[in-house]
């Protein structure tokens, strides 16, 4: 769930594409080529440049390649240089907001979304991005207000449904943060139904299925999680998010070989550091230390591949370092840096975890309280919270958090689920052994 907002932001790309671009399945390269030809033929066509920018954003969404975002911004800037004081400019402005979200420039994303709204196009879609930016900076209440504006009485029935899709898929995330995972699943399934009815592009429907899988996984419902990930793969074969999701399920089932294979496929499609870290963990669990080390090296390599990667993957790297007891000073520094621009529960969680690993238990506890302040039913957050609470001497709270983590999903993580059980056994034993509660995973 950590990266969810990022994905949601990008999803708008195709949902709001002009009619001519809708209904494509997996032809983003073809679309880019057509738009490139169009802007060459008509260098004054603001719509063509905006569509080209949107297509590059979609490409970036599919490949995870930050270079696509640069190309998108360039095309969108050109569009806005041709037309900016007009309701029709709202589309390019909204796409610019999406590009900023992809680069984790949340304030810029919010500002672009506001500029799009100020253009008065009558299309409420920019509220989606404004809400995403607010959610990423941890202002969930205002995000909810923003999402509540995703309604429209104008446009065709399909257009109104597309707006409803944006609202449902985003409100689902807020429900999850608020601790209502069943409610989140309900909203995601509603979004999925709309996506199917609208015959939205396959990648978008696959994404929604993947989200559904993530929510079921959080609930510990492996059967439905697997089904949702599989549906995503049926719709969009080779979909890296669904591959990674399915890998998680296989890992939870103890089928490590298949988990490794699936993670490997996901990394081949899009090399995200979190996938490499997860694959390394699987190899480690399989006793293949050399292979694990290579994957861990890959995590750092990807994280530092470019300036934009460092910006995007700060939090992933901080978590990776903290999880593996590596460069702990750096882990804390990265988490603090991320917190400057992003104050959502997951950034607080990563900071708490990094502080804990650095032995700063009181500070870690305070950060963990922030991470858990909304009652989010995320087993990893609760596990971190439980371990940190124990170190802070809050044994009862620690016990409750760890029990909650395991109750939500007894297989929430390849190694941390067992670690939670061990920690819990210490906590339920005599008081003298409580102080030895620790991160038993590594």
């Amino acid at each position, binding site marked *: 769930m950590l990266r969810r907002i990022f994905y949601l932001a990008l999803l708008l790309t195709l949902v709001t594409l002009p009619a001519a671009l809708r209904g494509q399945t997996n032809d983003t390269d073809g679309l880019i080529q057509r738009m490139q030809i169009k802007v060459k033929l008509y260098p004054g066509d603001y719509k063509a440049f905006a569509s080209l920018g949107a297509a590059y954003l979609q490409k970036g969404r599919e490949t995870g390649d930050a270079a696509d975002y640069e190309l998108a911004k360039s095309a969108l800037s050109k569009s806005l*240089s041709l037309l900016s004081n*007009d309701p029709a400019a709202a589309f390019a402005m909204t796409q610019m907001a999406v590009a900023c979200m992809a680069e984790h420039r949340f304030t810029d994303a919010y500002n672009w979304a506001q*500029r799009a709204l*100020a253009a008065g196009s009558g299309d409420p879609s920019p509220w989606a991005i404004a809400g995403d930016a607010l959610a990423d900076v941890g202002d969930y209440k205002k995000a909810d207000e923003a999402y509540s504006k995703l309604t429209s*009485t*104008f446009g065709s029935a399909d257009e109104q449904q597309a707006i409803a899709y944006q609202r449902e898929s985003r409100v689902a995330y807020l429900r999850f943060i608020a601790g209502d995972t069943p409610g989140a699943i309900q909203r995601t399934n509603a979004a999925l139904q709309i996506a199917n009815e609208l015959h939205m592009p396959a990648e978008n429907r696959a994404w929604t299925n993947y989200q559904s899988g993530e929510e079921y996984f959080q609930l510990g419902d492996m059967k439905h999680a697997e089904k949702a990930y599989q549906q995503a793969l049926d719709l969009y074969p080779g979909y890296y998010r669904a591959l990674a999701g399915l890998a998680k399920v296989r890992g939870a089932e103890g089928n490590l070989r298949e988990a490794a294979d699936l993670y490997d496929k996901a990394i081949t499609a899009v090399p995200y550091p979190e996938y490499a870290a997860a694959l390394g963990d699987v190899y480690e669990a399989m006793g293949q230390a050399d292979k694990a080390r290579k994957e861990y090296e890959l995590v750092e390599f990807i994280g530092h591949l470019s300036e934009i990667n460092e910006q995007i993957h700060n939090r992933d790297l901080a978590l990776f370092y903290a999880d593996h007891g590596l460069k702990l000073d750096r882990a804390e520094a990265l988490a603090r840096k991320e917190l400057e621009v992003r104050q959502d529960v997951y950034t607080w969680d990563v900071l708490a975890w990094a502080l804990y690993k650095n032995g700063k238990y009181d500070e870690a506890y305070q950060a963990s309280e922030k991470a858990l302040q909304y009652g989010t039913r995320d087993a990893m957050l609760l596990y971190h919270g439980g371990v940190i609470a124990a170190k802070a001497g809050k044994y009862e709270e620690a016990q409750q958090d760890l029990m909650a983590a395991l109750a939500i999903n007894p297989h929430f993580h390849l190694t941390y689920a067992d670690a939670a059980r061990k920690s819990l056994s210490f906590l339920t034993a005599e008081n003298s052994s409580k102080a030895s509660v620790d991160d038993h995973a590594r």
Partner: protein
Amino acid sequence: MRKTIFLLIFLAAFGRGRSQIISTDSRTPAEQKIAWAKAEVTAHPEEPQPYNDLAAALVGRARETGDPGYYDQAEAALQHSLGKDPHNFEGLKAKAMILLGRREFKQAIELTRKLNAEVPDDVLTYGLLADGLIETGAYQEAVDKTQWMLNLRSGNVPGLLRAARLRWIYGDGDGALDFYTKAYQETSPTQTEDQAWILTQMAEIQIALDHFDISDQLLHSALIAFPDYSLSLESSARLETARQHYAQAVALLRQRNKSFPTLESRYELANALERAGETAEAKTAYAEFENQALRLSDTPNNANRDLILYYLSNANRPADALRIAAGEARKRQDIATLDAYAWALCANGQYGEAEKQMKAALTTGIRDAEILYHAGVIAEKQHDNSAAASYLKSSLELNPASEVSQEARRALDMAMAAPVAAAAAN
């Protein structure tokens, strides 16, 4: 009306006109846009578009503050843009905005017609053209252009706003309120001046319809959204005048005139002072108004319509009123100008021509108590007592407490009595 009530409930519950979502940025929407545009100018000084954005933002700031000096700044920004590319479309659109702000309607129409022919699917160009057409009285063409806006992009706010204004002009008050409500709902809460502007337009309609309490709430919300907004203060003063709370009207207009008073707002203050019994100060205010209005009478940014009314209502100089009204009517044939011209003709005993001009003013079917009163008096002067009674009744039905309601009742009594008197004489 129901939609306005819903909007009021919405405002009371959530908005009170102030955004719940905006950040702590204390700048006004136009100031923010100016800052964004200036940052873009710094980043891309070779491009024309940042200067266009700056010019458009400065035009917005002119509306926020009422300070016409921003048009000069906007023009300066535009010089940079047009210097880099004299034919850049967005620059020329910004130029049209400046022309409209300076009330140079003829030039604005010429320019936007050209732009419209060049790029016939640009929504805002239709809107700018419609603005010029409305101001000069070419209402049917303005309707056509506004319809294009809504056809091209349904629900776009600039289109809804112009459509609302035209609905009011065509006598459809409920329809106008409906579109204003929709436009308000589609407007981002961060655009506080836009919100205040829409609420103020709605309040003006409610004043005209004798719904003072609703108007009061709308203006209250407008002033929370955008404190000290000159247009909302002017409307608030009109509301207090309608309620015969003249001292409050004076206070509101004094507050409004603290910064960048217009000739119109000076004239309104003079009127309010006179009604409040502050005769000496009113006399001075009228004299200052007349001096400045005469000085600017031949410029586009004149206050000739108020000057005409001043000569007719306050100074008893009907000949001067007619001279100015005739000149103004040659330039623009909008409802307010034609009404002022007709009223001046009537005051000069030229009833036939007055009737002709008044019929032209009423072509769209506008529902305005004061204009209908004027029409009633002119009809009476033409001995058309039936028409006079009809106009006067309409005026009183529309707004029984309008500024002209007492005169309208007297005139109606006379119009009703005239046939009886004539019959008795026979």
